[in-house]
């Protein structure tokens, strides 16, 4: 076969290590030319491809506990690539790549119907209600590898796909087709000061993501690692972002479990 082995890029975020500092959010914004407005306190229209949510165990003082949960796009594989957003897009603006497992979003193709936003159970998609405005001079820091978006289109995390492209270019120059694990890393992974994010190919047994989560191919990639879980596991979205936590209440808050159910015991 001419094609190299299909990749399935995924992420593991260790919630025990995540400090909620927000560096991943800003690293993402800086890398991907994410716009900003004077008032970003309405979180419904605040574009954050990577967003850190705060979870709480709901217990009263002093037993209350908090956990931070960074949420990029989950790059759901669904059932054979039928991720929720891809299957509803009428414009072929978003697609699931079988080569990388990455859900793409083409801004110039998107006409802003926002079906995908309604379909995404993770609120990972954002709509540009306004044209982006960079204060005079600030457009100088824009990254040429990512095109700035316009009003009226949806955008979301791309697992820094442009970094994949650049890494491939470098590999081609050296006469290689395959990338080493560290050659393609997302901006958030690179920035995380706690080292809480691990990124790599879930299909590749030598990659850390595979070793940490031990995805179970018989059960749509469900983690065999008892500390690992995925968000809304039972929805069947088959996401490629995994979380690790040693706290049970955190793992349980990944889905709407009934008291007698629990993560990992669902199937």
């Amino acid at each position, binding site marked *: *076969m*001419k*094609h190299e082995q*299909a990749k399935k890029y995924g992420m593991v975020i260790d919630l025990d290590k995540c400090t909620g500092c927000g560096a991943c959010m800003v690293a993402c914004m800086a890398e991907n030319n994410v716009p900003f407005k004077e008032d970003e306190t309405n979180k419904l229209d605040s574009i954050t491809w990577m967003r850190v949510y705060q979870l709480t165990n709901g217990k009263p003082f002093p037993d209350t506990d908090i956990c931070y949960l960074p949420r990029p796009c989950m790059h759901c594989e669904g059932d*054979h*690539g*039928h*991720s929720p957003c*891809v*299957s509803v*897009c009428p414009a*072929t*603006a*978003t*697609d*699931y*790549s*079988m*080569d*990388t497992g*990455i859900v*793409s979003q*083409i*801004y*110039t*193709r998107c006409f802003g119907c926002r079906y995908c936003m309604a379909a995404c159970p993770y609120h990972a998609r954002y709509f540009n209600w306004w044209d982006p405005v960079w204060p005079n001079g600030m457009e100088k820091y824009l990254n040429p*590898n*990512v*095109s*700035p978006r316009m009003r009226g289109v949806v955008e979301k995390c*791309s697992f820094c*796909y*442009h970094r994949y*492209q*650049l890494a*491939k*270019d*470098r*590999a*081609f*120059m050296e*006469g290689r*087709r395959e990338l080493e694990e560290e050659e393609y890393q997302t901006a958030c992974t690179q920035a995380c000061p706690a080292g809480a994010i691990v990124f790599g190919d879930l299909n590749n047994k030598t990659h850390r993501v595979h070793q940490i989560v031990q995805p179970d191919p018989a059960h749509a990639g469900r983690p065999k690692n008892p500390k690992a879980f995925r968000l809304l596991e039972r929805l069947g979205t088959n996401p490629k972002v995994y979380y690790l936590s040693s706290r049970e209440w955190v793992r349980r808050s990944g889905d709407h479990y009934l008291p007698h159910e629990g993560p990992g015991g669902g199937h």
Partner: protein
Amino acid sequence: MSTNDDKAKADALTDTGKQPEQDKPEKGNGASGSILFFFLVGLIASLLVGWVVFPELLYSKKKQPIDFNHALHVDMVDEGCESCHFFREDGSFSGVPELAQCIECHEEAQTDHPEEIKFVTQYVEKYREVPWLVYSRQPNCVFFSHAAHVRLAEMDCVTCHGPIGESTHSRIYEENRITGLSRDIWGRNIAGIKRNSWDRMKMDDCAECHAEAATKTASEGEAPIEGFFNNIIRIAFPGSLSGRKSSVQTQNEACFVCHK
């Protein structure tokens, strides 16, 4: 009652009896003739507008800041196009050379060619970048990897850029007034007809070549007859024979491959 009716009938007959002799043929010919005439006028005028005037209006013509002689330069360098349009170590493609590169040879004018003297006095001496107009510049939503095409697939520059290396003068740069892009993207031919692979640089042209390559790869090792039928199946049902679809919606690599 009846008398009146008859008379009226007779009048009517007389009227119609008279007119066919004098007017009808002429009027009839004239009416259909003029309809045809105006139809033709409209047709020809709009064809003229569409084929001749519109392209003239659509594109503004710009001269390159320096009339560059590719042929002359290609003769003098060792590594062909890549002597000036080179790959960087990180796999990115340098594209149009920057002034610093030109200065390596042209710190001072080497000939008394007026264009070279203009280049040296206006740009080199003032250390000002030359505002070259790039014929192949794509809109910002396009990602194109030179490394993948030139290094991995070992294509040559001419396939997409044409025999520009043989040119002795810089062509007039025609800029689309609506899109701001070069005419070379759509192609010289306003109807979009191309004779050579480098005549157009639109997405369809990328797709065409890629489809050909994919079919060629897929049918390697197939018997001629089998290949013929398989090709039909491949065109009708993309992805069905390759064993693995490369994407869900387009069946043909997700859009991220070429778009950013």
